[in-house]
């Protein structure tokens, strides 16, 4: 979308968005929940809640804990399973005025490929995000994203069943996120979403019990933003494919950090719970920011914070 002479559109590995914003998976339902009061024509796209091969009831309550500048969640991938989803849900997405990205989660390589193939076959779905990094399921939900070899296997399997844009969502809960990113790219990913939530826990000191029904959860919100910005920065230096930067973005300035670190679009999740108008405000603010500097597109700022280093050797990725 051209506003103030600035083109806010971006291309994320073949997925063309009119605005450089994606509503984070699990934070925005199917879009319908927000449609009454958020202008969906002013967001780039919605990443749907993850769907799995079989229905999942999700985790016991409590599923949410507010923390300082953040939110711990352990929903547990509650979803109706791909059969029900295709029959009852997917057709609704045709009505949305923005791009719809399906999100696939699984517990085996075969699961991912199966769900990905069936979901990607639907016209309503413009692209697929592979959620290989859900920290909130008892078994191996996040194992895929924590092992570069498994990441590659899942991405290769998904690549084999669809030509649609494949976005691979990476976990921050790894030692070397760049290594996982490289594997995902080599296996055929079109884009990367960086990052999923950071593992965390809260304890009720009156009752001496974990605050979450699942004990462990995923932390989102402003508390994780610096973690996410660095992850985007490191991944951007490791791969050539576009990055959707996400983690605690609430303001224009937050979003700009991600673009400058190397993201081509930004994901907005938890902030929608604070104020559903935030994505629209960020888009407006971006147009103004770029126009004021005589810039005509988002691409002119992507990764520009990297200029601080003359070569890769000057940055070793070690804060110490």
């Amino acid at each position: 979308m051209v506003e103030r002479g600035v083109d806010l559109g971006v291309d994320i590995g073949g997925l063309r968005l009119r605005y450089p914003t994606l509503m984070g998976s699990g934070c925005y339902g199917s879009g319908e929940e927000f449609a009454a009061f958020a202008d969906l024509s002013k967001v780039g796209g919605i990443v749907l809640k993850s769907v799995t091969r079989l229905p999942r009831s999700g985790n016991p309550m409590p599923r949410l804990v507010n923390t300082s500048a953040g939110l711990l969640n352990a929903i547990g991938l509650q979803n109706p399973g791909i059969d029900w989803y295709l029959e009852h849900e997917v057709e609704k997405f045709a009505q949305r005025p923005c791009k719809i990205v399906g999100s696939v989660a699984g517990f085996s390589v075969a699961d991912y490929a199966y769900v990905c193939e069936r979901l990607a076959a639907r016209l309503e779905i413009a692209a697929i995000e592979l959620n290989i990094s859900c920290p909130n399921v008892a078994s191996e939900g996040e194992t895929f994203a924590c092992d570069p070899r498994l990441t590659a296997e899942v991405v290769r399997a998904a690549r084999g069943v669809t030509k649609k844009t494949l976005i691979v969502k990476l976990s921050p809960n790894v030692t070397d996120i760049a290594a996982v990113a490289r594997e995902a790219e080599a296996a055929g990913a079109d884009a990367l979403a960086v990052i999923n939530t950071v593992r965390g826990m809260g304890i009720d000191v009156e009752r001496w019990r974990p605050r979450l029904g699942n004990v462990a959860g995923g932390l989102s919100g402003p508390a994780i933003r610096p973690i996410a910005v660095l992850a985007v920065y490191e991944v951007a230096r490791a791969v050539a494919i576009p990055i959707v930067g996400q983690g605690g973005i609430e303001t224009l300035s937050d979003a700009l950090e991600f673009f400058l670190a190397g993201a081509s679009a930004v994901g907005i999740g938890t902030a929608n719970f604070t104020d559903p108008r935030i994505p629209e405000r960020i888009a407006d603010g971006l147009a103004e920011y770029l126009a004021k500097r005589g810039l005509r597109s988002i691409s002119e700022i992507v990764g520009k914070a990297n200029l601080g280093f003359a070569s890769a050797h000057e940055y070793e990725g070690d804060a110490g």
Partner: protein
Amino acid sequence: MQVAQSRARVHATEVIDRREPAGGVVVIGLRASALAAATRPGQYVMAVPAAGETPAVALGIYEAEEERVSLLFFIAGKRTRELAMLRPGDALSLLGPLGNGFDLRASDRDVGIVAGGVGIASVLLPALELLRQGARVRLFYGARTAALLVERERFERAGCETILTTDDGTAGSRGFVTEALANAQMPKLLLACGPTPMLRSTAEIALRHDVRAQLALEENFACGVGGCWGCVVPITGASAQAPPFPPTPNGVVYARICREGPVFRADELRW
């Protein structure tokens, strides 16, 4: 359980009055005519903070009349502390009305309302609606201590009979409000809002006496609109077998308190 078509909007409102019926309890009145017109008894709003520093907080709609909506809340954390600092003239964004609300019928002639703590905020509107229909309305109202039985005169003035209890015996009878309910002549319909143990007891009493009961659940919401599936309660029966709920392998169906609720029938909850 009835899932209502969402009429929620973001309303730019202005604080027009403020009072503290007790220490730590605040009622703020807001100019919000569109919100007032759209509100049904038992619905709530998400109060959207101006600074974006804290997440939105869910508050029951206490009053809704003509151009004014009011919110009654207890100061319990950072977010409610911020809201308590609002003064007449200040702006506040509200997202709402949200949730299904109570299902009230003209045939409900003898109704008991059970309220505990901040739950009182969600039961004035249904009480007024029922009284307007000519029903007998008894309010079973419990609090820690007499001073926290806020707004009881408001209900009495409107025509409710009040049955009070306090933990310390400083007003009404000492003990739980549900004990007072169990000892009373049973109404034909029960509405309840308050802490979960109170709601559970209310549900047990209702089921034991074969009385219909509608419970407004309190939970920590993140999105408040059904987008995150963070506030759920296990349900059973017909509601659990219709969209958006597919059959699940273990038979447990979690409904969203913010979306399918916050009001559930006692017989559809599986807790």
